[in-house]
């Protein structure tokens, strides 16, 4: 693969991590999270400050930034217990704006100048797009396996029941508050991990990299692909990272197309391109169902 492909691939991989992590909070637990980029940024700055100012090893810094963002996520989880869906959505939007304002004004985050980061080395080799691509890909595979396992576990089932009806889940003796906080911790910690990788891959970060628009972009990936599934956010992240590259010839109309796409998707396919219950998936199931039925018929 060429350098260009690795470069876009690495970006796509980071956004897949972000989309999957947001999907845990919004898709599985049904919590309205509109400020995911705030935690992405928190992870990015934490990891960058750790490696650059304190000379911490890159991978240790990644772990520590996961801890920091996870802790902040726990705080948000605690807040979320007190707020209903719409209030939570706006509070998270607010957290995004306040966080960006802090990144832009604090001296430890480099203020409006941003931070420059020396790329880390792996086995004596300076990490480039290729290494970051493979590293993120491995993390995505691990995360997907973990999500599949989680969905089948007691925790996953509890989440599904909470998403369906929190009141009913509580009456069955499910500790709604605990699981809700736990999903916030997991989702934000992975966003922090993605942030740590992002800052070291880019070599430079500033506050606008984590603006509210980015939160919307991550959310769009989840919704366009199909909320509440693993394949959906992955497809959504791939589409929305590659689409701007393909549409480069029509650069002037990019936002227009983007906005129109969001409206049309939500209006006509609210469960996403390949989410559960989307026309595409139902069609495929019918098709394969027919094929299998025919095979079965021949055997009989």
């Amino acid at each position: 693969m060429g350098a260009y492909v690795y470069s876009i691939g690495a970006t796509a991989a980071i956004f897949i991590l972000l989309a999957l992590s947001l999907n845990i909070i919004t898709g599985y637990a049904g919590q309205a999270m509109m400020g995911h980029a705030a935690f992405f940024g928190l992870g990015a700055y934490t990891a960058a400050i750790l490696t650059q100012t304190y000379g911490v090893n890159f991978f240790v810094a990644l772990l520590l930034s996961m801890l920091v963002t996870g802790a902040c996520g726990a705080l948000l989880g605690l807040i979320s217990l007190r707020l209903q869906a719409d209030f939570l959505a706006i509070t998270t939007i607010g957290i995004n704006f306040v966080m960006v304002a802090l990144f832009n004004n604090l001296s430890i985050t480099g203020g409006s100048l941003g931070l420059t980061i020396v790329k880390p080395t792996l086995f004596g080799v300076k990490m480039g797009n290729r290494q970051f691509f493979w590293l993120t890909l491995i993390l995505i595979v691990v995360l997907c396996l973990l999500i599949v396992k989680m969905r089948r576990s007691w925790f996953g089932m509890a989440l599904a029941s909470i998403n369906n009806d929190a009141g009913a889940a509580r009456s069955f003796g499910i500790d709604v508050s605990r699981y809700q906080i736990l999903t916030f911790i997991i989702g934000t910690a992975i966003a922090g991990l993605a942030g740590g990788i992002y800052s070291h891959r880019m070599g430079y970060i500033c506050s606008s990299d984590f603006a509210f628009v980015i939160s919307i972009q991550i959310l769009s990936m989840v919704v366009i692909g199909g909320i509440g599934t693993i394949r959906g956010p992955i497809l959504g992240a791939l589409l929305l990272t590659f689409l701007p590259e393909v549409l480069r010839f029509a650069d002037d109309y990019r936002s227009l197309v983007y906005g129109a796409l969001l409206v049309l998707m939500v209006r006509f396919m609210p469960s996403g391109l390949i989410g559960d219950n989307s026309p595409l998936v139902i069609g495929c199931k019918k098709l394969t169902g027919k094929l299998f039925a025919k095979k079965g018929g021949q055997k009989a």
Partner: protein
Amino acid sequence: MFLQQVINSLMIGSLYALTAMGATLIYGILGILDIANAGAYLLGAYVGYYVYQATGQLILAFLIAMTAIGLFGVILHRAVYGPILAKPRMLSIIPLVAAVGLFTLSSDAVRLLCGAGTKAYNFRFSTDVLHLGSVSIQTTWVLIFALTALLLAVLWFILNKTKMGLAWRATAEDPDIAKACGVNTNSAMALSYVLGYGFAAAAGIMTGILYNSITPALGEVPSYKMLAIIVLGGLGNPLGTVVAGLIIGFAEVMLSTYTQIPIPKDAIAFVVLIIVLLIKPAGLFGQRNKV
């Protein structure tokens, strides 16, 4: 000096209240956070600009822009929001995504159609500034304050003294029961959009007059700030929105004048919001436990 700041806060706060009123009316009935209302605000500013440049009549600009954008809102509801809300088992975040898409679409359409540059209303009175003792007020501010007060009074009258308003309040209370009692909930929703988008258009024109410049990015700051204001006011409560708009106006002017907080002016609304929500999770004027 202090009195001057109080008057400034009052002016900015009343403009905020008007800007957020549209989103409040729509939330009150449909329960969706309509970021696209900032798109109506932007479109209103541009429609008003073109009408004013063509005719030189400011009143006409207000009337045409408010009517056109209000009707546009009704069409939008029929074509986009209505069908989305009619789907069963819908995640609360879905209409919000549609609204974000509509807002992006409208800002970009304005940029492509009208150009990315700034346009100036060039509306002036013969005297620019009124001096009352130590306090000086821009004449345009007085106009905006009077118009805002007038519009809010009209709104109060429609909601509280007319049959339409009664239907609106009944639908906001409980759409199903209202329907069962013979209220035409569809027309109440249409009223929400006519008033909601019309008010946003009026607020857009006022901002255009006040700062004497409009750009396609005009709606960006209001798009999130109006959310902070409507939540602070208890979501869907028109009176709460007026109070919340004034609170945010005061907080912004006072904090940026008298303190040295490391947060830009436009983020203050959210700091106030987060603090208030932590103390009162249903906003200042929200009902608790309305699930």
